[in-house]
């Protein structure tokens, strides 16, 4: 059995000449919960559709459970649990009916498990789908995605449109029903605070590439904001940084290698202080960071030149 549930190597995809994925590469280890983070239109849904074989790639290689989804899309979809973004199901069907409708698509469908999940998720079997709430819809989608006991579950922004209580419930469902069974979970999200409690690994997707991939504790201990006196700005111009903000007397830089930068500053005798960042701030630094040089153009601050 392969070590990785998903392998993506140098994948590119364009729509009408517009490059959406640009040499995308990453692996998802079996048994891990992997969160793909990105802004709207960063390429999250395109990535997921490529994994399921719902789209063809222009370039690169993809393996899902050892299979190429472009070659064996049906086999991939038989073995993967999938919940599409804003999944719309037939509103006139009842919960019990859709379970029977979906079952034949999967060779390993476990009807008892489907009924058990529906019961645990407190979904009324006789209710019509169009009468379910948004939260119930997501739970029904989860039950349908997991009732064939897939080794890998792929969820496209499942928490989209859920209120805070339902988001928490959704996280609990993931922990209780998927992680505890050892399933690999690959899901996209734009809600970092919700992702941190459940993800083993987060990847930040921006402009069609992975900007960073790490477990959340490592990410938090490596990425910090370091504040130095503005007068020392010319001494740090060589330091690689994600974001810089200048105040009147101080310059705040967000760096990826906080320990090394602190060692350097200490060795140079520059006074500094370190701020811990939350995941939202880390995400913003990666996808919306500004460099010192850009600051110079806008502020013309003499201290920074």
């Amino acid at each position, binding site marked *: 059995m392969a070590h990785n549930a998903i392998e993506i190597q140098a994948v590119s995809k364009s729509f009408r000449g517009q490059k959406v994925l640009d040499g995308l590469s990453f692996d998802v280890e079996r048994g891990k*919960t992997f969160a793909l983070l990105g802004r709207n239109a960063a390429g999250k849904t395109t990535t997921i559709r490529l994994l399921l074989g719902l789209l063809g790639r222009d370039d690169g290689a993809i393996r899902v459970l050892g299979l190429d989804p472009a070659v064996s899309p049906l086999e991939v979809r038989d073995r993967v649990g999938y919940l599409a973004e804003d999944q719309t199901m037939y509103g006139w069907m009842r919960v019990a009916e859709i379970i029977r409708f979906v079952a034949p698509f999967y060779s390993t469908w476990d009807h008892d498990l489907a009924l058990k999940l529906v019961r645990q998720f407190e979904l009324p079997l006789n209710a019509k789908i169009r009468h379910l709430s948004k939260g119930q819809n997501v739970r029904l989608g989860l039950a349908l995605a997991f009732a064939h006991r897939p080794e890998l579950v792929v969820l496209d922004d499942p928490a989209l449109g859920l209120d805070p209580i339902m988001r*928490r419930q959704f*996280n*609990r469902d993931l*922990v*209780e029903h998927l*992680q*505890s069974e050892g399933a690999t979970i690959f899901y996209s999200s734009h809600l*970092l*605070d*919700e992702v*941190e*409690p*459940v*993800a*083993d690994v987060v990847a930040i997707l921006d402009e069609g590439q992975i900007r960073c991939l790490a477990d*959340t*504790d490592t990410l*938090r*201990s490596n990425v910090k904001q370091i504040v130095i006196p503005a007068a020392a700005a010319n001494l740090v111009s060589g330091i690689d940084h994600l974001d810089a903000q200048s105040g009147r007397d101080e310059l705040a830089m967000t760096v990826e290698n906080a320990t090394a930068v602190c060692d350097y500053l200490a060795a140079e005798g520059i006074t500094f*202080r370190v*701020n*811990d*960042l*939350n*995941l*939202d*701030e880390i995400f913003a630094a990666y996808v919306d960071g500004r460099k010192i040089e850009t600051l110079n153009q806008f502020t013309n601050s003499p201290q920074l030149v």
Partner: protein
Amino acid sequence: MLIRIEKGSSVPISRQLAEQIATHIAAGRIKPGERVPSVRELAKQLAVNQNTILRVYERLTADGLLQRRQGQGTFVADQLPRRRPAAHRDRLIEELRQLVHQARGLGLTDGQLHELLDTALGQVEAHSTANP
């Protein structure tokens, strides 16, 4: 064992967990030899990844606060270490340092800051005498 996870905090969830469990133990709210929730139970209760809980339990076990008994679960250690783990102390110093920065930002003198700390100590003291 009551644990509160603050989402969106700059303190990582694993550290929030470790510190709160350590505080419960230090305050005697869970006693030596008492069983703590299983990894699975706590993960479900808090909606937090089991691997995170497992890592925290392993760290607290290495610090001598918890004991894992084969096949029985995880317990508060019978013999608690006398000294607080160094990490806990470092974190407290860091928080104090942040407080000092804030106080300076507000234009407080060192003397005034000491007075404020004395006031806070007095309030905690009075509160714990009123609610033993």
